[in-house]
């Protein structure tokens, strides 16, 4: 049983791994704590990657994109 603080750290570690593109590592981190959690993270990771692929395919005004990328930097 994880405490909320530990849970948070775990989620943060998972997110960190995913943002580095290390999906498998993220799944491994979660699975180490709990197999079911690993499965859930696997699902999340694949959703994120799919979502990213979909977004990357969108036709976005480059000028506008640059502006918001600067904001979120």
């Amino acid at each position, binding site marked *: 049983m994880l405490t909320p603080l530990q849970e948070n750290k775990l989620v943060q570690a998972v997110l960190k791994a995913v943002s580095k593109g290390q999906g498998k590592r993220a799944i491994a981190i979660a699975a180490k704590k709990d197999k079911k959690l690993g499965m859930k993270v696997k699902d999340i990771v694949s959703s994120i990657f799919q979502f990213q692929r979909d977004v990357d395919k*969108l036709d976005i005004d480059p000028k506008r994109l640059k502006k918001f990328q600067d904001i979120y930097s």
Partner: protein
Amino acid sequence: MPSKQEKEAQELNDSLNKGGKEFARLMRMAQMEAAATNKTLQDSQKIVRDKFKTLADTLKLTKKENEFQKAARDIGKKILHAEKNKNEYNRKILINQQKQLQIMGKLDDVASDITEQFGMQAAAIKNGVKQARLLLNPIVALSGALALSVKRFFELEKLGKGTARESGLLERNTREFQLAIKDTQPELIAFGASVDDISKASAASANNFGFLNKETADIVSQSVKIGTAFGIQADTMVNVVSEARLLGASMEDINQFTNDVIGSGVQVNKVFEDLKAVQGDTALILAGQTDQLMSQVLEARKLGLNLNDIANSTSATGSFQELFTSQMKASVLFGRSINLVESTRLRRQGKFLEARKKELASITGTTDLSQQALRIEEMSVEQKKEFERITGRTASDTIKDLYRQLFLQGKLSGQTALDVKNEIEREKLLQRQLNLQDKLSAIFSKLAIKIGEQLLPQITTFANKFEDILDEPGKLNEILDKTVGYLKTAFGILVAIKGISFGANIASLFGGMGGGGAKTPVMQNLFGGSFKKTASGALDARATRINTIGSGAKFLRVLGPAAAAISVGADVFKLATTKDAKERKKALGGTIGGALGGGLGFFLGGPVGLAIGAGLGQFAGKAIGKFFADEVESKQDTLNRVKSGIDFKIANAAFDREIELGQKIKEIQFKGAQTREEILDNVFAGLKGTELANTDLSGLVDTFFQFGEDGKLAQSGDEFLKAIDGFKNALNDQATEAIKDWAAATKLTAESAASSDLLKKLDRQKKGLQTVSEGALLGNENAVLAQFGTELNKILQDRLGNTYDNTDFVQFEKLMRDSKFVEAEKKIKILEDKASKELEFDAGSLAAQNVTKKLALQAGLTPEQIRSSEGIASIEKKDFRNSRGLSFEAGIRSDQLTSSVRNALEILTQQVDRERVAEETRILSSDEFSNKMDELINAVQTSGRLTIGGKEFSQINKGLVDKNSGVSS
């Protein structure tokens, strides 16, 4: 100029920490913001942004400013200002001040993190340990389950019979109902309902239906749930449901209505209270039309109205003559043609809300609610009076109604309405309605019920079997007498062994050991009994003897049967958790007594019998617990009392002596003394019989008095008086010192009477262990790790000699020197792995044990003590060979290693404590100790008499120690 969307995006980004920004990139926030090019998309993007912020907050991915960081930010503004004014000096200093605050902020952050984590871990560990201890102890588990089962039995008993009693039905006629309600009862209790709620609701149901069966149990169960969740009295709810059912509504209709009510978002309790309160014309009109009644009440509530308030207007049932008259009157008064025919027709059909709408529209001339309110406000007094007469509501109430309606319309058309609509699962909604505390207590109640159910069949069988006995009062009395008789015999034997004072302690409980004079039997009037009352029903003052309640009965009455059973559980808990040996013994006695008493209680029969048994047994058990207290404990108690008694006497005596001596010194006469010898004679006479009696004071006399060659005093007048004053002060100082010495010497004897060299050594060792545990080495985990490394290296050198390659150890030392502690932990683990493999034994555990052994030696323990210690054996590699955080690579964890060593030292301390008790036992039971105590007491008495006439000290034997029994009186 940035757009609103850009501003909001910027705001969100500013609130994110580093992790949060990564998360934003991961979620392609920038791309999606850029893709939201029109209003529709930007609106929904705003929702996405808000939700992202919520999630980031939850995941702690947003910046949280503490007070220091905030202060630092405020200084930032001043820096800008300084820059603007080109005040370079201020700018520099401000930047440094900002840095100071930022560092403080970081420290505060880390500290709160640690505190939070530590608090949680500590709580988790504490609870975990407690529960594990409880569960591991089979007696605890069994007794706990027994107590909970007895509680559950009482609960069900109350539910079954309580219901029958409340409803006025025979118990056997409610069995079907009882069975059904018993199944749902744990769920209801877990929902927060009490057994009383269920009983009351059942009685209400019985009143309505005249019987109790499975269907009524369903009604009760549903009603109690809704009642509990929405704060409605359980019986109100049952009345509504029962009446609806009797008026022809099916359970499906009622369920559907309940769902509608909950789903509508209105105050659920108000709807059911309104339904219960429906009366007068409303009830008459809607009689038999349950569906319509229910929907009208709900619709009215949706508008914030109570159906009764709006339904009972004069136009509802007035005659047609009256109708036309008031219509004419209103038309004249309001200067407009007013039609009350339509609204009256609607009212008579039971469509009260529509009727009211029509009436208001007709009188105010508008359908807009705010306009209606405004127009009513503007009415003249006469118009308002007529308005009130027609509608049956006052103008001000109607204005309030209209505003409430307006408010509710806005409210229920927004997000609330949407949420309510989405929540179709009633159970979910009900659960959500209960607050967290309710839920937590519900979980525990459910758990208690589940455990309680385990032994319930056995208890029920026993209880049923013996309940029959309870129905025969004669037999019950016989058993009671017999039980008390058995107990008396048992205690008689104990008393024969231990002595009469023990018996006297418990004699009062059972009404004396061997009969005795006329007194109140302890169990008199336990069950209410045969009180003598006057005609008015008050207790008859002339029959105090009969009306007196026995002490035991008082005890049990106050405790209550369930409490008696539960207190056995409490003892069990105490037994498992208390550290105090004496408390543990008492609790053990209570538990044994409780269990024995519970057994006896079965012979008494029924739950009351169980309770009496448990109560009596527990009471007796505590006495038994005391009886079985260790001899050592009793002796220790005696010794402590003797010691503190003597200390107290000594302190008193010292004080009295000082006063006495001071007085005597004051009274020393120098008048007429001419020579040195004469002065000394006077002083000697004055101090006779005191501590200073035989002291050589000639030096002191010479210091203050001066003598001529002829040996006569050279001082006279003021000089002489000054000399006397100085001399007496010096004597006083001497006296204080002498008394201090006397007190110290006497106290030393009191201490030393129960002491030995071994005891002193053990005391030193305990202090030593404490010093080591709190010392510098264990205060620094890295130093412990370094010691571990050194020990490991030594083991390898000793065993392998020249073949040992110490490269790993050298690297470990370097890492430690460079403060790379995590790497050092991993490196030393590698060396430990190799060592264990090559030496073919657990080198890691041995190295840690060696560190501990050295510390123990440092604390003063002997090699023999260390060799035979469980503490050293408790150190095992598996406890400190682990990985840190999420790392896969294990190391020798310095923190866990330190904690292992600490634990071992703690066990060693316990070992020393045990040895201390053994030695004290030996001393206390020795003849030498008894003799020494006698000597001491005599010495104090004797010296006391010498100084103060023996007044205080002559009582020492009576007040302090009864030498025969060794027990202080």
